[in-house]
C-alpha cells in the first residue's frame, strides 16, 4: 500500500518520467491502432516496428552521434519506406499481402541487425544504447525524451481529433469517401504517417516485437465493448493509459521487471477479459444467449408434443407420462426434465398422478407453435414448390423464431388456410 502511495504521489522524478511517458505512448498508439485494425491492416504495424532498426543505425552511421531527433528521423524514413515497399510488392506482383509483410519485416530487420552488429564491432564507444530501439526500455526514459514523446502524442491526438470524420469514413467505406470527393489517397498517406510516427516513438518503451501489441491489442479489446468508433477509440485509449501506468508501477515495485512486457501482458489480460465478459459480443454473453434459446426450443417442443398427443382424440388437456412424450419425440431425458419443471413453474403445464397435462394457457402456447409449424410447411409447398415430405425439418427450426408480424403476413399470403400439406388442421388463433 505504501508503495502504491509513493508511486501515485510521483515524488521521484524518474518515476514521473517513466509513468507519464508510458501513459502517453500507450494511449496515442492505441488511438492510431484503432484505425489500422479497422482497416484490416493490423500486422502492418509489426512490419514498421521491425523496419525502424535500419533507419536508426543508418542515422547513427551517418552522423556518428546519438541525437534523438536525428535517430527518430532515420527510423521514421525507413519505417515509412517499408510500408511503401509492402504496397508496391502487393500491387505489382502476385505476392499476397501477408507474405509481403513477412518478407519486408524480416529483410528490413536483417539489414538493421547487420548494421547494428557492424557498428558494435567497429568499437565506436558512442554506440551503446542503440539497442534501446530493439528491446525498448521505458525505465530509461528521461526528461528530454518526454518532451519529444509528449509532442508526438499531442500531434497524433490532434490530427485524429481534427480529421476524425474523414478517418472514420476511410476506415468503414473508402468507396463512399471517394464519391464524396475526399482526397482518399492523401488521407491514407496521412494515416500511414501517423501509424509510423506512433510506432517510431512507442518502440523505445516496449521494443520491436511488442510494439504491434500496443497498436492491435487495445483496439481488438475495445471493439468488443462497442459498435461506435468514438467510444471504441476512447475505450482503447483509456485501457492503454491504465496499463501504461500499471506497467510503470510494476517495474517501480520490482525494479528487475521490464516495463514494456508488463504493459503488454496487462493489456492482453484486459483483452482476454473483454473477449469473455463483454456484453453481447463476449464469449460468455453469446454462450448464455445460445443456452437460453436452446432451452426455449426444448420447452416449446414439449408443449407441441403434448398438444399433438391429444390431437387425435381432441382432448388436449389429458395427462401423459414421460415415456409417452419420449415415444412421440426423442430427446435427452435430462433436458426434458429441466424443461418440464420450468413449464410447470410458468403455469403452462401441471403435474398429476398419471403424468403431465397442458393447462389452458399452455394449450394456447402449444397451439401457437403448432400453427407456425404448419403455416410454414404450407408456405414452403405452395410458394417454393418444396415436396410436402421435405418441409417438416425446416419448419422444426423456423417455428421457434417466427414473429407475430410474420405470422400475420404468412396467413394473409396463404389466404387464411385451415389445413397443412399433410391434411392436418391448422389450429386457429383463439
Amino acid at each position, binding site marked *: 500500500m505504501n508503495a502504491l502511495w509513493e508511486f501515485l504521489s510521483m515524488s521521484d522524478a524518474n518515476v514521473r518520467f517513466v509513468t507519464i511517458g508510458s501513459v502517453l505512448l500507450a494511449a496515442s498508439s492505441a488511438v492510431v491502432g484503432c484505425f489500422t485494425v479497422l482497416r484490416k491492416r493490423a500486422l502492418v504495424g509489426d512490419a514498421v516496428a521491425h523496419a525502424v532498426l535500419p533507419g536508426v543505425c543508418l542515422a547513427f552511421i551517418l552522423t556518428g552521434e546519438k541525437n534523438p531527433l536525428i535517430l527518430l528521423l532515420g527510423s521514421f524514413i525507413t519505417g515509412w519506406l517499408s510500408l511503401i515497399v509492402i504496397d508496391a510488392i502487393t*500491387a505489382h506482383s*502476385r505476392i499476397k499481402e501477408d507474405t509481403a509483410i513477412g518478407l519486408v519485416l524480416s529483410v528490413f530487420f536483417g539489414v538493421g541487425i547487420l548494421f547494428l552488429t557492424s557498428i558494435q564491432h567497429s568499437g565506436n564507444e558512442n554506440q551503446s544504447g542503440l539497442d534501446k530501439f530493439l528491446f525498448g526500455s521505458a525505465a530509461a526514459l528521461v526528461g528530454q525524451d518526454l518532451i519529444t514523446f509528449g509532442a508526438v502524442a499531442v500531434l497524433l491526438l490532434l490530427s485524429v481529433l481534427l480529421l476524425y470524420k474523414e478517418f472514420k469514413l476511410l476506415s468503414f467505406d473508402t468507396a463512399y469517401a471517394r464519391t464524396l470527393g475526399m482526397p482518399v489517397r492523401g488521407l491514407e498517406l496521412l494515416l500511414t504517417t501517423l501509424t509510423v510516427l506512433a510506432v517510431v516513438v512507442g518502440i523505445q518503451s516496449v521494443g520491436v516485437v511488442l510494439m504491434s501489441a500496443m497498436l492491435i491489442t487495445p483496439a481488438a479489446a475495445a471493439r468488443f465493448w462497442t459498435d461506435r468508433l468514438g467510444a471504441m477509440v476512447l475505450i482503447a485509449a483509456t485501457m492503454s493509459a491504465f496499463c501504461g501506468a500499471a506497467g510503470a508501477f510494476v517495474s517501480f515495485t520490482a525494479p528487475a521487471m521490464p516495463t514494456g512486457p508488463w504493459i503488454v501482458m496487462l493489456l492482453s489480460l484486459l483483452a482476454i477479459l473483454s473477449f469473455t465478459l463483454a456484453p453481447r459480443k463476449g464469449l460468455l454473453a453469446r454462450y448464455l444467449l445460445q443456452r437460453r434459446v436452446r432451452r426455449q426450443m426444448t420447452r416449446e417442443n414439449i408443449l407441441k408434443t403434448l398438444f399433438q398427443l391429444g390431437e387425435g382424440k381432441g382432448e388436449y388437456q389429458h395427462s401423459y407420462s414421460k415415456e409417452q412424450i419420449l415415444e412421440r419425440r426423442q430427446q435427452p431425458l435430462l433436458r426434458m426434465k429441466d424443461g418440464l419443471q420450468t413449464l410447470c413453474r410458468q403455469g403452462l403445464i401441471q403435474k398429476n398422478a398419471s403424468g403431465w397435462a397442458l393447462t389452458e394457457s399452455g394449450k394456447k402456447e402449444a397451439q401457437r407453435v403448432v400453427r407456425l409449424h404448419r403455416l410454414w410447411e404450407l408456405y414452403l409447398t405452395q410458394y417454393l414448390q418444396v415436396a410436402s415430405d421435405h418441409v417438416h425439418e425446416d419448419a422444426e427450426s423456423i417455428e421457434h423464431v417466427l414473429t407475430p408480424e410474420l405470422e400475420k403476413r404468412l396467413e394473409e399470403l396463404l389466404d387464411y388456410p385451415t389445413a397443412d400439406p399433410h391434411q392436418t388442421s391448422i389450429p386457429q388463433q383463439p
Partner: protein
Amino acid sequence: MNIDAFWIIFTGALVAICCSLLGCFLILRRMAMVGDAISHAVLPGIVLAFLFSGSREIWTMLIGAAALGVVCTFLIEFLHKKVNVQADASIGVTFTWLFALGIILISVYAGQVDLDQDCVLYGEIAYVPLDIWLTESGMNLGPRTVWIMGGVMLVILLFISLFYKELYLTSFDPAFAAAIGISTTLWYYLLMGAVSLTTVAAFESVGAILVVALMVGPPATAYLLTDNLKKMLVISAVLGIVSSAAGFYLALWLNGSVAGAISVVIGVQFTLAFVFSPTHGLISRRRTSSPGRTNLPKEDTTTIEPAL
C-alpha cells in the same frame, strides 16, 4: 575455406532447407504471418522447459517449444473462429502476449535461465562451431547444432515427401480434401507442429527473425519463378542454401551478424526475381501489357492459387 566457415554455412543451409520447404506451404495458405507469430511465441515454451529441466537439454526444449507453437496456433484459431476477433488482430494479440510472457519469465528467473532477448531475436550462428559434440572416448563428431538441425531436416523431408499429397490437397483445395476424407484440421496442426519444431531447433543458432526471413523469402522468390509446387519447393531450398553461403561472406566482409546478412541476401534475391522474373517479374508484366491495355486485371490465372 576453413572448417569453422564450413560448419557455419552448413548449419545455415540446413536451417534454410527446413524453413523454406515449410514456408512454401505457409505462403500458399496465406499464413506467412502465422509462421512469424509461432517463431516469437515459442519463447515462453523454451523458458519453461529450461526451468523444469534445469539445463539446455535439447529434448525438453524441443517439446516445450513445439507445445507452445501448437498452443499459439490453437489460440489464433480460437480467437478468430470462436471469439470472432478479426483474423490479423488475433495473430497480433496472441504472439505478442506469449512473447511478453516469455520475457517476463526470463526476468523473473534471470538467475536460473541462461537466455536473453537478443539471442532469441537474432541468435548467433558464428558460435555454432564452438559447441562441439564429443563422445565419451573423445571422438570429435562436429558441432552439436549440426546434428540437431540435420535430424530436424530429416524429419521435415520425410514429412513432406510421405504426405505430399495430403499437404498439397489441404493447401489448395480444402473442400475437395475434406470430401475424400483428409482432415484439414489434422494437417493444419501437423504443419504448424513442424513449423514449431523447426523454429525451436533453429532459434538458438539463427534467431526468430532469420527463421521468418527463410520461411517467407525463398518461397516468395520461388513463387515468382514457377507455377509448379514441386519446382517451387526445390527452387526455394536452393535459394535458401545460396543465401546462407552468400550471407556468411557478406557478414565476414562487413564484420556483422551472419543472420542479418543472410536476410539481406534473401531480400536481394527477391528483388531480382520481382524485377526480372521471366513470367511474373515487373519487366515481363510491363511487356505483356501492350500499350492498348494499360489496365491489366491484377489477378492472374495461374495454377498456384490456394482455394481459400
